[in-house]
């Protein structure tokens, strides 16, 4: 009787282990950052400090794998299978690429060059040119699993054109 009970307990534990293992194994990776960020940064100040640091690649390792919240203006939108926003850092020759998983393509599809975004991402690394011959002359921060926390769409051109159209129609009606 005791033997049977022990065998039963072992079998139940084994099945529970199998279920947990299977669930862990099949859970997809988290493609977006959530919750409180590990760091909140003023992008321009951060990049200026990193640009001046001769051992920036080493210094930056503190941020690798950590979530960072920051704001910046979109310089370019790249990619097809996933989407990458290149963010202006305010420092010449220093780029920041914020990558979004393809599942969030619809969320990012409205973002265009000139928009100001607040993002929370995971830091993947800081790349600095390896030599004078390097084809990648720029320094670059790579980030992934980004989330858009706030989006201020660039409306300057639209409002200008609307004003222009209104003033034109006004002038036309006046002349009539």
């Amino acid at each position, binding site marked *: 009787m005791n033997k049977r009970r022990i065998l039963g307990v072992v079998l139940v534990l084994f099945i529970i282990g199998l279920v947990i293992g299977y669930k*862990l194994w099949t859970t997809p990776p988290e493609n977006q950052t959530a919750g409180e960020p590990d760091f909140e940064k003023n992008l321009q100040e951060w990049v200026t400090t990193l640009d001046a640091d001769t051992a920036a690649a080493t210094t930056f390792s503190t941020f690798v794998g950590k979530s960072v919240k920051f704001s910046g203006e979109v310089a370019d939108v790249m990619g097809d299978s996933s989407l990458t926003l290149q963010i202006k850092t305010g420092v010449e020759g220093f780029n920041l690429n914020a990558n979004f998983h393809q599942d969030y393509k619809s969320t990012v599809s409205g973002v265009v060059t000139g928009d100001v975004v607040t993002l929370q991402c995971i830091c993947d690394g800081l790349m600095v040119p390896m030599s004078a011959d390097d084809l990648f002359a720029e320094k670059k921060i*790579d980030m*992934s699993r980004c989330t858009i926390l706030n989006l201020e769409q660039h409306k300057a051109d639209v409002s200008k054109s609307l004003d222009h159209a209104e003033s034109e129609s006004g002038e036309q009606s006046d002349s009539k």
Partner: protein
Amino acid sequence: MKKYFILTAIALMPLFSAAQVYKTSAGKISFVSKTAIEEFSANNAQVEAAIAPAKNQIQFRVPVNGFVFKSGLMQKHFQENYMETSQFQYSNFVGKLSNPTAVNFAQNGEYPVEAIGKLTMHGVTKDITVPGKVVVKDGAVTLKANFRIKCSDYQIKIPAASAASVSDEIAIAVDCALAK
């Protein structure tokens, strides 16, 4: 005078086009590990690639954390235990074409090439030769390659418990569309 200026400009035009660099920050690399027990793959769409035809120089930079797996646990193991990305955040390839004259960057076509260079991964640098092709279409250049590497060559340790499910030899596919 105007005639000389135009003639000089025409004469110098090939030099300017040859000095151009084709680049991308959104290239793709994927890899597949296949054993009798398990097959898995991962994709990375954050690859930086560049080719400078005039200097016969090719370069790739791969943020290793950019590899996405189907399984979150597998991705975590890959980053933390295998590639140790907290220490080695990037993999790099710097090289050149062994047959640069085989590619006419001014004419549409698929050109078989061979890239020779140094691959740095997991902090280890090795000389490698990679067969591939350069596809030129309407001014855009696509670099494609399929090759294999051994994890053990780059001191990527596969735990004994995973040896049956993770292959030492990994098949890598590169597909990077570059623009001027």
